[in-house]
């Protein structure tokens, strides 16, 4: 791996399987550290916020670490953040699970709500529709691996912010991925999505500041 590999931090706040994300990002060309160190999270070229399980549990984990302000500051400063699954959901205003409303980080508008579908959890490989201008590295009709019961479903509010919304449909339409400035979130698991996921992670990694080629430094 070249010295110029972008440095990516996978935030370890006690949420499940981080190993696949670590390995998939490394395969995409990143120099990956899995850590709870907020200084590292703040200064990395890219920050990945994973997450499985309950919205409230993930928010509690982020709050215990004090990670919310670090994530918000990165997005405000244009420093890339990638949220995956519940790590994507916590970027929204809030989550409604089991009749309990939990505030989220509020970087994206709307509440994450239960999918009104015949079969829940939505589990498996589903297709997405990708909007024009997207830099996700995904194409219309690509299949990604989903496993979730809740999703952001107010597509109008999302689009009103100027965000690029990639959509999925499981009886009802929902946000499968959102690109808003430096913030990218995916409801699906790119690290579990074989070739299509690898392409997405390569595109995200290639867009990190350190990965963008600069003029070679003069020889000493």
């Amino acid at each position, binding site marked *: 791996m070249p010295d110029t590999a972008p440095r990516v931090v996978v935030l370890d706040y006690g949420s499940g*399987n981080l190993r696949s994300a670590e390995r998939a990002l490394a395969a995409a060309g990143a120099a990956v550290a899995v850590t709870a160190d907020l200084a590292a999270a703040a200064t990395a070229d890219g920050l990945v916020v994973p997450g499985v*399980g309950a919205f409230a549990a993930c928010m509690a984990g982020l709050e215990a670490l004090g990670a919310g302000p670090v994530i918000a500051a990165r997005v405000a400063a244009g420093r890339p953040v990638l949220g995956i699954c519940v790590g994507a959901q916590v970027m929204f205003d809030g989550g409604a699970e089991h009749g309990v409303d939990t505030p989220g980080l509020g970087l994206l508008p709307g509440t994450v709500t239960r999918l009104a579908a015949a079969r829940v*959890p939505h589990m498996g490989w*589903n297709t997405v529709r990708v909007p024009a201008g997207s830099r996700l590295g995904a194409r219309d009709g690509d299949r990604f691996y989903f*496993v979730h019961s809740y999703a952001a479903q107010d597509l109008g509010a999302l689009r009103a912010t100027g965000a690029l919304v990639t959509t999925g449909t499981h009886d009802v339409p929902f946000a499968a991925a959102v690109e808003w400035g430096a913030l990218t979130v995916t409801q699906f698991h790119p690290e579990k999505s074989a070739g299509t*996921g690898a392409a997405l992670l390569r595109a995200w990694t290639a867009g990190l500041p350190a990965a963008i080629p600069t003029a070679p430094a003069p020889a000493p």
Partner: protein
Amino acid sequence: MSLAVRVIPCLDVDAGRVVKGVRFADLRDAGDPVALAAAYDAAGADELTFLDVTASSGDRATMLEVVRRTAESVFIPLTVGGGVREVANVDTLLRAGADKVGVNTAAIARPALIGEIAQRFGRQVLVLSLDVRRAAGQPSGFEVTTHGGRRGAELDAVAWAREAADRGAGEILLNSMDADGTKEGFDLELIRAVRAVVDIPVVASGGAGRAADFPPAVAAGADAVLAASIFHFGEVSIAQVKRALADAGQPVR
């Protein structure tokens, strides 16, 4: 376009080695679960299931190492079942790189375990594994078995599936002990009976002998189909199953 039917090969792993023999061309070590996982990934498998049939607890560490190495090299979902007795076992498997964990006997012995796991990790990690046989004595005509189908658990399989879903199971792996090994097709009545009482995904297992056996299982209500020996022995390929499903109008990846 919609959610694809998942085609899942299942590997029995004993002390870190695949048992029941696997015949795969171009595979140097067909007993290595990691190499096999990579081969099935390349062949288009949508998920993988490892069933830990290790008898001694001392070899559990070996299974964790297998899960770790697989999660490092294969980027599709991995379910690991066998030997899960308590919440701590689930934590250990997830940290090693499993995405879902199969629970069977321990949940029959203590149903509250289902809720405990779902509460801690989310219901999506919990696959309730059901070994079922026909039994006239049960209201649905199907009973849950333990010990590889040799013992009846005196539990109605359909009622138990519904209860497990209510308690927080995220998926049901429905294995017909009657059909298992017959290669005469899935037990469609069993799939229909369970499908009728749960809204979580159902994985059909047991009885597949040829590609044409798979579409009827999906038509009966299965969201995913699982098989072991016919894939391992090269009798039917993942691609052939997907072609049969697609020809029947069912979406595949």
